[in-house]
């Protein structure tokens, strides 16, 4: 009887701990924590992210040479991404709060290369001054949130716009897939980093499944948020969308 009680207590403890992880993990879930990746994996993700960052900085220089206001605009978009990724929103299925990544919308507005730089900036500030993410895992986080999020969001949006999807739907799908791509990449990075001698795939699936209860609905929420942003910009400031080459000037007239 005593052993059974002990087992129940252990089980409750584990459930509570896991629940706490889900809540805490969700709050900053797209960031891989400092120290979680061994040095060789941490270094590998820096190497993978480096060419994207270099291209993003090249594009930034090129565009800011032509328009002096471009750098301040990119800096402010980085601040917006920082704030969006710090804002908790409710996740009904999990009974907890989580937050969007914001790289879907920055990918749509600034292009995926510069959005990668924007994500890197937001991630570095969060790592240094809030302990969300980390310096050693910056490369991995740039890869998942910056590169995967931005490129998936941008390509989804552009792809759907080619097929004449309206702004709201294209924005929704872009936000949704950007978010899910981020978590897919995060799961792969985590599984490869912490698996030790165990095989990759089983751990990858376990981590992915652990993310599903919150990240599945969160992706939908991020999609709705991105759609809301794009539609609001179209209604209130279509000139901004034209300037960012999200839509053509003729579409505003229509």
């Amino acid at each position, binding site marked *: 009887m005593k052993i059974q009680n002990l087992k129940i207590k252990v089980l409750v403890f584990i459930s509570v701990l896991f629940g706490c992880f889900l809540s805490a993990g969700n709050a900053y879930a797209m960031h891989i*924590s400092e120290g979680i990746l061994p040095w060789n994996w941490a270094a590998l993700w820096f190497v993978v992210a480096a060419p994207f960052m270099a291209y993003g900085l090249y594009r930034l220089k090129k565009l800011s040479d032509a328009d002096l206001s471009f750098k301040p605009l990119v800096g402010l978009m980085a601040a917006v991404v920082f704030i969006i990724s710090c804002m908790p929103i409710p996740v009904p299925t999990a009974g907890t709060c989580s937050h969007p990544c914001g790289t879907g919308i920055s990918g749509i507005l600034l292009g995926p290369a510069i959005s990668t*730089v924007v994500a890197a900036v937001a991630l570095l500030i969060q790592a240094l001054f809030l302990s969300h993410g980390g310096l050693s895992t910056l490369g991995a986080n740039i890869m998942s949130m910056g590169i995967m999020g931005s490129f998936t969001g941008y390509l989804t949006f552009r792809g759907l716009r080619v097929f004449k999807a309206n702004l709201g739907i294209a924005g929704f799908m872009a936000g949704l897939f950007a978010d899910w791509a981020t978590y897919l990449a995060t799961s792969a990075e985590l599984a490869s980093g912490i698996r030790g001698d165990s095989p990759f795939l089983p751990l990858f699936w376990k981590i992915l499944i652990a993310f599903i209860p919150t990240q599945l609905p969160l992706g939908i929420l991020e999609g*709705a948020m991105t759609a809301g942003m794009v539609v609001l910009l179209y209604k209130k400031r279509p000139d901004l969308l034209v300037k960012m080459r999200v839509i053509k000037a003729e579409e505003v007239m229509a």
Partner: protein
Amino acid sequence: MHIFSEYFKKDHVLSQIDARIKLLIALALLAMVLSYHGFVFPVGTAILCLFLCMAIKVPLRVSILRFSEPLFIAAVVILLKLFFSGQDALFSLNIFGAEVVGHRDGLREGLLIGTRIIGAVSIIAVLGFSTPFIEFMASLSWFRVPKGFIEILMFAYRYIFVLFEDAQVIYQAQKNRLGYSTVRRGLNSFGTLAGSLTIKAFDHSQSTTVAMVQRGYDGNMPMLMHKSFNASEIYGSALFLLVMGVLWKM
């Protein structure tokens, strides 16, 4: 936003040290923690960093907030490794007829990762608490981090506070008008909030550019000039790293 280092006590033992040296030491310690194959060094580093946090008078609430997320993540990694990794059975639980086995080697692997997280987070926390943002940017510039990246960092950091205040005002206004009373309305309100922030960001960027051009901005921002290194700082930090290196090697 009173969690950034600017708001803490400024005249402490670490504020006297050059930001470049602090960054170098932090990176070296981080490399040691990440490459260490045991518990002792990361735990020792975490304890040292905890003492430093207390010495520079970081508010307890801020410290708890800062460490809560990494601690949870460390705990879950330990649990994941305990139950889903390893061969050597330590104990087993019967959960609704299914047997869940905890593994000794899994627990060891989990503890290795868990202590690595705590050690690494502590180092970066001390660096963040003790280094003002502008000094940190200047040291990045000295380390030849691309200037465009640093400029974006500076713009972002400057406007986080402005946009955060704007976001708070919009959020309160929406909340007072029941903007978050249902999930659907909450989503609409959040989309509007994020869109409004983007519009404000654009407007701020235009006005900032005009103001900066009037002050001679030509697309490049000047960085903080560095003072020359102090010999005692260099010898002191070299000695500290030597001691830590010996402990790491043991």
